[in-house]
């Protein structure tokens, strides 16, 4: 009981994830600033932002649904933190695992997007509604390529459990190199899931104010920002576990350090994409995801099938 509480609240649960999440946001903003030849924010900036938001009073619009408006941000945070429990970080075994937990992780990572939709929808504000509908429209574009790309390595390992997958790739150390195309696809899809810049039309501040979060203030906005920070780390951890499963049989603290390096690498790639690209319109985004990203993910799937049947 006590150890379960420790796992949920401290490590690798809420506290540890929040620490990683705020650090990830700092790294993202600092790198972004350095790419633009600026100095950038100090190291405590994301924490200061969160504390300030939690100390502010909150305004709930009269027309908004009072219950949904309050509950939805907490659901976003809870879903992302839960997903992390199934991802292996200091070895080949996650804290909890069962057959098919890969699907559960993807499902739990879909929940935040739905909470963005529900939060925007129940704000009953025009900008928030447009943002909400865009975020769900975008969901249909990136979710399929992401699922296909993540399933390709699972197919090669012949299991739907993330822990068994990492074990398979530890026994066969170089097989992860077959999935590099899928890694690229998943990385681009992750940009869509996190609503980062090339795919940030759901919260495009230059056209629809702040998208789904337009009416959110104070504490509730804080929960959402917290959830987004954590989601970035969980998404990067999922990609690291699925596509970069090397060096997992080393000494556990070393594996943990390697894990931190892997998610740092993925976060840097996400920031690079944010810096060099401009926002895509929502229809361009869907075009790109269905015409290019999904076929490439299919190619990866078929490639893995052929390799599995003919060579391995």
């Amino acid at each position, binding site marked *: 009981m006590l150890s379960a509480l420790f796992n949920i609240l401290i490590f690798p649960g809420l506290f540890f994830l929040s620490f990683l999440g705020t650090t990830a946001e700092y790294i993202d*903003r600092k790198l972004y*600033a350095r790419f*633009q*030849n*600026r*100095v*950038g*924010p*100090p190291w*405590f*900036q994301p*924490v*200061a*932002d*969160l*504390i*300030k938001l939690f*100390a*502010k*009073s*909150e*305004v709930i619009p009269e027309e908004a649904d009072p219950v949904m408006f309050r509950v939805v941000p907490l659901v976003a945070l809870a879903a992302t933190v839960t997903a992390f429990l199934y991802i292996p970080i200091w070895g080949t075994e996650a804290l909890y695992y069962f057959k098919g937990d890969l699907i559960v992780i993807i499902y739990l990572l879909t929940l935040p997007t739905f909470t963005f939709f529900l939060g925007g929808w129940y704000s009953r504000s025009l*900008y928030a509604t447009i943002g909400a509908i865009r975020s769900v429209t975008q969901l249909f574009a990136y979710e399929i390529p992401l699922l296909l790309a993540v399933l390709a390595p699972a197919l090669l390992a012949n299991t739907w459990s993330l822990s068994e997958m990492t074990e398979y790739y530890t026994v066969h150390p170089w097989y992860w190199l077959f999935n590099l195309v899928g890694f690229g696809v998943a990385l681009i899809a992750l940009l869509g899931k996190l609503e980062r810049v090339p795919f940030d039309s759901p919260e495009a*501040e*230059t056209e629809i*104010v*702040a998208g789904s*979060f*337009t*009416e*959110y*203030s*104070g504490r509730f*906005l804080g929960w959402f920002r917290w959830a987004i920070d954590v989601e970035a780390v969980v998404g990067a951890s999922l990609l690291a576990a699925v596509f970069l499963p090397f060096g997992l049989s080393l000494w556990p603290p070393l594996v943990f350090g390697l894990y931190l390096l892997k998610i740092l690498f993925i976060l840097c790639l996400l920031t690079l994409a944010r810096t060099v690209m401009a926002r895509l319109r929502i229809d361009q985004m869907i075009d790109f995801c269905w015409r290019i990203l999904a076929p490439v993910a299919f190619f990866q799937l078929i490639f893995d099938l052929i390799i599995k049947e003919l060579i391995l």
Partner: protein
Amino acid sequence: MKIIDKIVLWARLKSPWILHFNTGACNACDIEIIAALTPRFDLERFGVQLKGTPRHADILVCSGPVTRQIRDRLVRIYEQMAEPKFVIAVGSCATSGGVFEGLYNVQGGIDQVIPVDAYIPGCPASPQAIIDGVVKLIKKLEGAA
């Protein structure tokens, strides 16, 4: 002062999010405010971020005299912000009405309509002056607590 209040004050001073609102300016002050937000001055060093919605913002940065037409909108924007909120008046017109003082369609300075915490004079106020004004507001808050 309790330790939690100290932490909250620290966070508030380190993360001022601003909302820019033109109450009837000739655009000169607006351009200078935008210039203050460019990478050259890099206000993100101090945690300043430009927000699109009054719900997220802590500081309302107003420029220009309050025209009679925009008066109700200014009050509504101000009321949409969550507490604690602060207002900065940028430019001579925003502080007093400037050359538009006494015109039939002009109410006067920002403080005729909503309470103002800091005045930044200048026609237009330069980016350095605007940043100095924000720093002085933060110093004032630090001293008041």
